[in-house]
């Protein structure tokens, strides 16, 4: 147990009253714990410029990535102080973005539910992609509508797609491009929801 005087002498209020740091914003309030503290971004091997994925304000983010044992990991995501939109600020959702990436609930494998099935099964990604391609082709063929009301429409009403507002412009563009070439027209996103 430390000497009482030592304990008092280390007390920040005592140090503030007796030392040079009368405002208590410098040495008076520093402890070994403070001295040992490091920014949580310090371990990053690189910093990548990004944008918050939640609402459409478009706050700037900096993504701090560390390579641990040959594997990259996001160790922190912070507001980008350079952004004229956000000037470094993030809201509760934006500030939680690291967890969006690192949460244990992330899906990492394909899950498959067969018709009338009662449980999820696993599929390889390659097999799933093949099965999906087969279904698109078969459904498109089965539901192809060359004419409607006597006029050419060259489409299928058998395949629909919903989603895009959380995706990138480039992703939306390829979705619209491929589906349109396939003749699918019920292509929608959150914009009218």
């Amino acid at each position, binding site marked *: 147990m430390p000497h009482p005087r030592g304990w008092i002498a280390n007390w920040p209020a005592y140090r503030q009253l007796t030392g040079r740091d009368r405002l208590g914003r410098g040495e008076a309030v520093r402890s070994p714990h403070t001295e040992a503290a490091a920014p949580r971004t310090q371990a990053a091997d690189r910093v990548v410029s990004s944008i918050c994925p939640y609402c459409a304000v*478009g706050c700037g983010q900096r993504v701090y990535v560390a390579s641990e044992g040959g594997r990259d990991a996001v160790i922190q995501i912070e507001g980008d102080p350079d952004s004229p939109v956000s*000037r470094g600020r993030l809201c509760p959702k934006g500030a939680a973005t690291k967890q969006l990436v690192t949460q244990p609930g992330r899906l990492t494998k*394909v899950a498959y539910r067969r018709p009338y099935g*009662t449980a999820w099964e696993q599929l390889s990604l390659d097999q799933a992609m093949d099965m999906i391609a087969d279904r698109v082709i078969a459904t498109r063929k089965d539901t192809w509508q060359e004419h409607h009301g006597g*006029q050419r429409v060259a489409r299928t009403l058998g*395949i629909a797609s919903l989603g895009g507002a*959380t995706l990138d412009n480039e992703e939306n563009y*390829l979705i*619209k491009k491929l589906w349109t070439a396939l003749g699918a027209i019920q292509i929608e996103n959150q914009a009218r929801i």
Partner: protein
Amino acid sequence: MAECHPVAFQWVVEAKAGGATVIHVDPRFTRTSALADLHVPTRAGGDIVFLGALINHVLSGGHEFTEYVRAYTNAADILPAEFTDAEDGGGLFSGYDPDTRTYDNSSWQPTGERDETLQHPRCVFQVLKRHFSRYTPDLVEQVCGIGPAEFGRVADAVVAASGREKTTAWVYAVGWTQHSTGVQHIRTASILQMLLGNMGRPGGGILALRGHANIQGATDVPTLFHLLGGYLPMPGPGEDMDTYLTRIPDGGFWGNKRKYLVSMLKAWFGDAATAGNDFCFGYLPRISGDHGTYRTTLDMIDGTVKGFFLLGENPAVGSAGGRLQRLALANLDWLVVKDLTMIESASFWRDSPEVAGGELVTERIGTEVFLLPAAAHVEKAGSFTNTQRLLQWHAKALDPPGDARSDLAFIYDLGNRIRARLAGSDDPADRPVLDLTWDYPEEPGGDPSAEAVLAELNGYAADGSPLASFAQLADDGSTRCGSWIHAGCFAGGVNQTARRTPWQEQDHVALEWGWAWPANRRILYNRASADPDGRPWSEAKAYVWWDEQAREWTGLDVPDFEKAKPPDYLPPPGATGPAALSGRDPFIMQADGKAAIFVPRGLQDGPLPAHFEAAESPLRNRVYQQDSSPASIQYAGRRSTRDQVAGHDATYPYVVTTYRLTEHHTAGGMSRTLSRLAELQPELFCEVSPELAAERGLENGGWATIITARAAIEARVLVTRRLRPVRIPGEGVIHQVGLPYHFGSEGLVTGDSVNDLLPLVLDPNVFIQESKVATCDIRAGRRPTGAARMQLVTSYRHRAGLADEEPRPGT
């Protein structure tokens, strides 16, 4: 705004510190209200009356910005004698067909004459005056429950902060759009802003706050049924290229429509697209009416839609009519869901309320479900377009885990597999797929290059160099451009969206950060920030102006005007497209270059806004004989939506309105799964006033059951003065129940889905659902479980005289 777009709200707080008056009009008192100068509590759905009364206040008091209105709007246009206003038609404009609930707009077309004095009785300005003359402070009190003194404070503040020296901005989110009259809400605000000269000027405008990172971009590119890139419409049945192009108005910069279309077709179909085959225009599928997401839901229930892709969407929670959404998913042949985590739209077959209630039986649901893991934004490169049209690039930081992939990689891979299977097909229907340009350079790891896709959106000149501007586009097939409004985002072969010059190193317009469409312009129609002669309206509001020495437009922003067109330019006879607009016509996407106070084309529910009650409302319409919007879409003829709306029935005496929380994101897939957000808002609650709590025996912290004609849900009770009873003279009190809608059955925190309560009632212009107003009953205690839950709903329906839904085949 402080709740749902907190970081943007810093600018409002800063403006207030600089002397701006901040007014918050909302049924609820929120963090926004707490920081505003004035909170005006209102009844949800009364917005057209509130804004219309401001218009009336401006017009009857002579507060309009006369020079702006005369020069820059269509106020002087003279309407034909055949036009009948809603004032004279009991709420209906001329051209209404009650059988189809649609308008024929032929009687809305201006005669072509103008009266610059704005005195002609049939000029738009005079028609507008009459149209809004009954929208008085008294009417505001009767419809919105806002007293005349409070309304007067708002009216005075808006007028005082408009004119040469000042501007007023209106900021809205889905509180304005999610109504059966949503588009007309925005229209009412735009008329007010035109009259006050607040469009195209710094600090002015009508600013939408969108809720998803790229909802703007998904609209521009777009993943919407009725559009091609850059707001070109989808073709209709039987149209060839010329008839299609004739349908698009030709004035202003739409005069270049053929260049936009041909360049897009060249980007998509490459060398297969030639002048001889109309650049493969015939490859495009044709739409015929409503193919929106709600119509598609009903078509799934009816069995005509077989396969469905859900890419980062969760309609089982996020869309109106959750039960119908889940019944739709359960009637598909196959469903592909791509998301970060398990969501309700993937797991409906085992944990939906319909399975719990016995309406669906897992073993009898034939839907084959593929649930594919998605990459997070840091695991892929790409651009988001924020709510102010600003494209901002996010770089890839690391690879996604396991089998997770970007949607770019998914769609590219799927396209490759489909094309490989169809290779060699002689079916003409397969030509569009096989002729599609689908050869993007791959990054290490095999993903397609997102920058190469962005470069295609930007487009290429005949020599293969990236376009610098849409002004370079040609209609002869020599240029390729995926979306004309994006031309310039890859100018000089440089990804302009990735620019990140710090804000401290540039002026406040910050043109060196990201890239805004079109042409990196930050304020649209900014030529209106100068007077007709090209001088700033005031030094305080100088933004873009004509430099007589240099003979060009200049200023803080990229001028939204032909750079060398002087203010005194007059179009020569026979001029078309941009050349047909004078040097004083700032609204260059309009055929006449004028802002449209009166809209003769393009709106399904009238050329001027008119107040209608929501499809469900405790009040009758005080303004017109028509109660609810006569053009709204209600799918009354469909089996699943028969009698879905309770109208004014007193079985459901209260208003239910929905909203979002700071700590959650839409349908919850990106927030209920995060412990840090889940612990901040762990449970669904309903906000009720102390008066309503007393009336219905609700206890703070206890449970309540909320019942509509569609569903019954339970929520914790939050008794709060944040929701005040609305007092309507002669009607008494109207109570509003507030509900955040983020919850569902998956994730770390779960709860009933509020959107289950809502009907499928849509705005006829944009097919957005009415989420902000429905009627309900609320009672203390938890809801029944299992089959008894729907029995409770049914018992209410019987009391309200609503018919049972017709049974579906197979059930």
